[in-house]
């Protein structure tokens, strides 16, 4: 009978330590590790190892289900806490803006060029298709988006559309609608990448085609320069963001098709994690684009100012992403 007694001895001997570890972990999870005293903080890893060794002993000697499951969950909690993320949210946020965001975009440079090429091909294709056969216009631009801006419209009506806002009241809603719509398109570009990147390419081509169709329509009335101003004020940010989202999708699709030395699934999940940061950046860019489109474009009517704002934004984004900078870790 001494065997079981010796085990119950272990429980009697160690239970106080397990409960202390339990309490410390609860404090950390509810508030923060900073609320622990130095003494408790130093005790944490020691208590964790003690609990692990108790778990090993209990598994081999005890048939008490409650005890073993208690120790298992306690050890798992302690493990995820001790080996978990160590940064505070504020530090994480600072790191995102100073390092992670531009680094993620730089990491996608090759795919960005490819995505840009696809978008340009789509634009050129859309332009020539619509120029040669205006019927194609309706295929590229859905009716609710066109809202009267088609080949039946007069030059004056089109020109007026470029300079009249959606009405002073609805501007904020308009900006919001644009932002949520564009963000979803961008997230689809990213998320659908795992299907070998094909949906991403199609989305990019389609966006390019739509752009080309608009250019053809306004070009046929000699309004290209004015349309350029109307588009570029937000388009330099928005199209850049969509190209980057497409690049992220292409990276995932590429790693599914050509996984290299890794298993296909592992390759896909690695590129998914690498590009996820870029996607948060893309959504932030689209927020800026939505504001520029919904507010800036409706309030600023001068073509040259529109061009100036659009180009400035483009230069700012490029400088933020691609200017070489000192590596803080040498």
């Amino acid at each position, binding site marked *: *009978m001494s*065997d*079981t007694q010796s*085990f*119950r001895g272990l*429980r009697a001997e160690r239970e106080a330590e*397990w409960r202390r570890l339990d309490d410390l972990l609860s404090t950390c*999870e509810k508030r*923060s590790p900073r609320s622990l005293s130095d003494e408790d903080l130093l005790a944490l890893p020691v208590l964790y*190892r003690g609990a*692990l*060794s108790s*778990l*090993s002993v209990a598994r*081999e*000697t005890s*048939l*008490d*289900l*409650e*005890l073993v499951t*208690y120790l*298992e*969950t*306690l*050890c*798992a*909690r302690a*493990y*995820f806490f001790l*080996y*978990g*993320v160590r940064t505070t*949210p504020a530090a*994480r946020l600072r790191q995102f803006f100073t390092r992670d965001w531009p680094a993620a975009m730089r990491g996608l440079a090759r795919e960005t060029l490819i995505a840009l090429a696809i978008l340009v091909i789509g634009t050129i294709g859309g332009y020539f298709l619509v120029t040669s056969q205006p019927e194609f216009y309706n295929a590229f631009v859905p009716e609710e988006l066109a809202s009267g801006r088609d080949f039946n419209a007069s030059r004056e009506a089109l020109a007026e559309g470029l300079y009249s806002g959606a009405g002073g*009241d609805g501007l*904020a*809603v308009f900006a*919001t609608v644009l*932002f*949520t719509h564009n*963000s*979803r398109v961008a*997230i*689809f570009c*990213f*998320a*659908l990448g*795992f299907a070998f990147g094909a949906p991403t390419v199609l989305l990019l081509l389609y966006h390019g085609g739509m752009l080309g169709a608009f250019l053809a329509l306004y070009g046929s009335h000699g309004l290209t320069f004015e349309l350029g101003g109307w588009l570029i004020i937000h388009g330099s940010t928005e199209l850049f963001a969509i190209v980057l989202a497409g690049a992220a999708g292409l990276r*995932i699709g590429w790693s599914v098709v050509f996984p290299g030395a890794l298993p296909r699934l*592992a390759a*896909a*999940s690695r590129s*998914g*994690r690498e*590009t*996820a*940061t870029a*996607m*948060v950046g893309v959504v932030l860019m689209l927020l800026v684009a939505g504001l520029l489109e919904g507010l800036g474009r409706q309030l600023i009517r001068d073509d040259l100012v529109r061009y100036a704002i659009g180009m400035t934004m483009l230069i700012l984004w490029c400088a933020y992403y691609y200017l070489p900078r000192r590596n803080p870790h040498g």
Partner: protein
Amino acid sequence: MAEQAILHRAQSVRMRRRLVTPEGVDLGLTLASAGQRATAFLLDALIMFATLIAMTLIVAFGFMATGLAGAEPLAIIWLLGYFLLRNFYFIILEMGPRAATFGKRASGLRVVARDGGRLTADAVIARNLMREIEVYLPLSFLGMEAAEGGAGAAMTLLGLGWACLFLFFPLFNKDRLRVGDLLAGTWVINTPRQRLTYDLMRADAHSAGYAFTDEQLDAYGIFELQTLEQVLRGGNQDSLDAVATTIRGKLGIGEVESHEAFLTAYYEALRRRLERKLLFGRRRLDKFDR
């Protein structure tokens, strides 16, 4: 009955995954079942909608109080608020120390990296952005079709098929992975809050009144012992009676004074015997294990 029990046990073994800590101990994590995941998600969806409705009410009352009017801020809440909430609610909560949303906490779940390493912010972002195409795309798609008054049946079917493909994806792989989990290299495990109550082996031997023979103690194995432990801890009188009657019938013991006292005594004797066997390297899994 026995087949059921074996089936149940096989299921719990199937959901266990190895995670060896740097100290060399396997933590033996249990994956969350599809039902738990669905419950957690529904809870989260409820919380998000409650937040949106609360915000709407606050703004509406604010307007009433100040005498202004306009649907604009309400539209912004439902467009922008909903978009930000459904993406960042999950991302921010899962990046915290608990690595779980409120719904997951209530169901006792948390997100961990599949390789056992640190759960990075990138992984959390990736797994939650995929939700946009898994859940919200088919939902909004169906909503749009319905709003437009039954556009093509083929399109609706396509949308439904798409939704089902992603919705039931976790059921078709052994790790219960969502597409987002697959891409982010994460999985969701079960970490219920476990309480350590009392030791059923009390120092003052309850078994004093009972003396069991070796044959009587050989009737059951570890699985039955631990089931008996759960019945005793549960303390439900009906199940105590049912279990005691079954055991008495099997051991050939007549009427007893109190079923609980009898079961406690049998539990102690059985556990003592099985633990001694364990120390000698013999783990008798269940009553079929001879």
